């Protein structure tokens, strides 16, 4: 296939794709799928919509690859496409119920009551996220979950750094409040 499992940098993969090696794009998809998928699922709150947004973003990135001016930072550029795509879906998905998002560690555990409690915590987390305004959720996820720098976030959202910092701060405060409320149900 021409792509080995040894870490080939994004720049090299982009170069190969541009040279006609479609398979090299598969390696990029594999590389970024989980990370971007995680963002999309938490941002949109609906797994099917998130997967659709993710798929669209990958396809769009491929088709506009010539506009990736710094191939070494393909990942960041791809994030920007996804963030924008999630913004348009956000409005549509808002009226649908948010589904659970599970993860391995929360779920492994033998007894039924423990599993139920873990699932309830996971649910509380997702519901708290859902209550945030979209721009707060976006900033919070990019900063704390995706662990991007404020400079990077500013670049791909087009927002100012101080505005982003304020949103993240407010998001944290609100989430604290929501999670506390959920505990006392």
């Amino acid at each position, binding site marked *: 296939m021409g792509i080995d499992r040894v870490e080939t940098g994004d720049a090299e993969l982009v170069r190969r794709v541009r040279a006609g090696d*479609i398979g090299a794009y598969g390696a990029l998809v594999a590389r970024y799928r989980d990370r971007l*998928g995680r963002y999309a699922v938490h941002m949109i709150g609906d797994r099917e919509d998130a*997967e659709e947004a993710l798929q669209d973003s990958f*396809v769009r990135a491929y088709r506009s690859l010539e506009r990736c001016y710094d191939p070494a930072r393909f990942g960041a550029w791809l994030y920007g496409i996804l963030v924008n795509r999630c913004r348009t879906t956000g409005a549509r998905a808002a009226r649908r119920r948010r589904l659970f998002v599970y993860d391995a560690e929360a779920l492994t555990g033998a007894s039924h009551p423990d599993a139920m409690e873990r699932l309830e915590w996971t649910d509380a987390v997702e519901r708290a996220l859902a209550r945030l305004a979209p721009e707060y959720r976006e900033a919070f996820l990019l900063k704390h979950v995706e662990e991007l720098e404020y400079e990077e976030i500013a670049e791909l959202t087009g927002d100012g750094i101080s505005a982003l910092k304020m949103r993240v701060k407010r998001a944290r405060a609100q989430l*604290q409040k929501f999670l506390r409320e959920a505990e006392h149900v």
Partner: protein
Amino acid sequence: MFEHDDDIVERMIRQLRRPVSLDPGLAARVMGEIAAPAHPGKKRTWPWLAAAAAAVLGAVVIAHPWTRGSTTSTDAFQFVLMAPQAASVSLVGDFNDWDPARAPMQTAHGVWATVVPLAPGRYRYAFLVNGVEWRADPAAPNAIDDEFGTPSSVVTVAGRGS
């Protein structure tokens, strides 16, 4: 069990950082879309799927309206299997009389695919690799019964308006 205010947010962040499960067919769908000729309004045939990396774990069933407004209520479904070592793969099931000659699959870069029209219903099916090896579809539900000792999968097609 009183938790410091900030800690509960940190706990939430740890929770959110955990991996999220995604449909294993997503990478295949991306690669398929990229490889397909973009001709809106025409029948979409996907004879080739470009290589996806190891992320393409299994098979995917994608519904595509074959022709809009047709009187026969079938949708076209694409069946995909990753089998880089195979010399031939056939799709057989309740929709084609389990006849290996009816749906031989096409391959590109180890990814095998074919498209079949399906009317609403529940269909058992499997892949026949190299004419001898039976494989279920990794990304589809397993068939409950394997009375003949080989694995099968199930695809259920909803009726219109359901």
